[in-house]
């Protein structure tokens, strides 16, 4: 089954990339007060069991995809993900 992991810089954590993007958007004339840049990982799993997928995705997010010290992650499971 398909899944998507969204990784974001934690709230309050400096995000120089987001700041640069926000500044660029303001330069273009967009009324933007803030921008934060994260990462998206599309994963295709062998299993069709949502619970099993959820467990595996949480583990892979903690172990590799995100660094919990500075990043949070959310998992979306299913073909719409």
């Amino acid at each position, binding site marked *: 089954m398909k899944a998507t992991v969204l990784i974001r810089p934690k709230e309050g954590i400096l995000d*120089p*990339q987001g700041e640069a993007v926000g500044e660029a958007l303001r330069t273009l004339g967009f009324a933007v007060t803030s921008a934060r840049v994260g*990462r998206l990982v599309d994963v295709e799993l062998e299993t069709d069991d949502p619970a099993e997928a959820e467990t595996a995705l949480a583990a892979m997010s903690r172990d*590799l995809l995100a660094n919990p*010290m*500075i990043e949070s992650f959310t998992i979306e499971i299913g073909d719409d993900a």
Partner: protein
Amino acid sequence: MSDGPRIAVVTFPGSNDDGDATLALELLGAAPVRVWHAETALPEGTAGVVLPGGFSYGDYLRCGAIARFAPVMEAVSAFARAGGPVLGICNGFQILCEAGLLPGVLRQNRQQQFICADVTITVESTASAFAGTWKVGQELVIPIKHGEGNWYGDADLLAPLEARGQIAFRYADDVNGAVGRIAGVTNEAGNVLGLMPHPEHAVDPLLGPTGGVAVLEGLLDAARVSVAH
């Protein structure tokens, strides 16, 4: 071949300061041995390990995040747990942080720029196995060259590090936004050291500053003790 301490210099795909690290260690009288990341054991008689600078796995995901799972890292972790001295330089520092062998994490530089410059760092603590000849307040000029050298740890992490003397080096000036101007940290046991500046590029007066000698000599001192035990 030198009869100095045998130092394993690990090469990951994308490492690019492994050669300079090897040359610098040879210059200082060590017997460096190159080790490929796919090895599952360190060479016999290894007395110290260097994880060199570079861009392992293209810095994909986060710097060091993928290299920490390289086969050789289990052997490096076991070596560190047994008290063997491990030095991580730049990308090597990032790998050690991702592997949980050192505290904190290296973020993108605050100014969003890759910085390449000679910087002054100050010895903050002599609590580690590397610091036999270091003096608190001693200044070392060593080049940095990194885009993600902005060390971060929250207040709960930082306070005990400061109290235990795990902050090895600070930048004299704020160069990248690192919390507390931290340039290098050690683990609690004091046998694992990581720093963003490149001591292996600062050992020959012909090529500029020589602040790296004290850092690498620190590794050699720790390695000699590690062999003696």
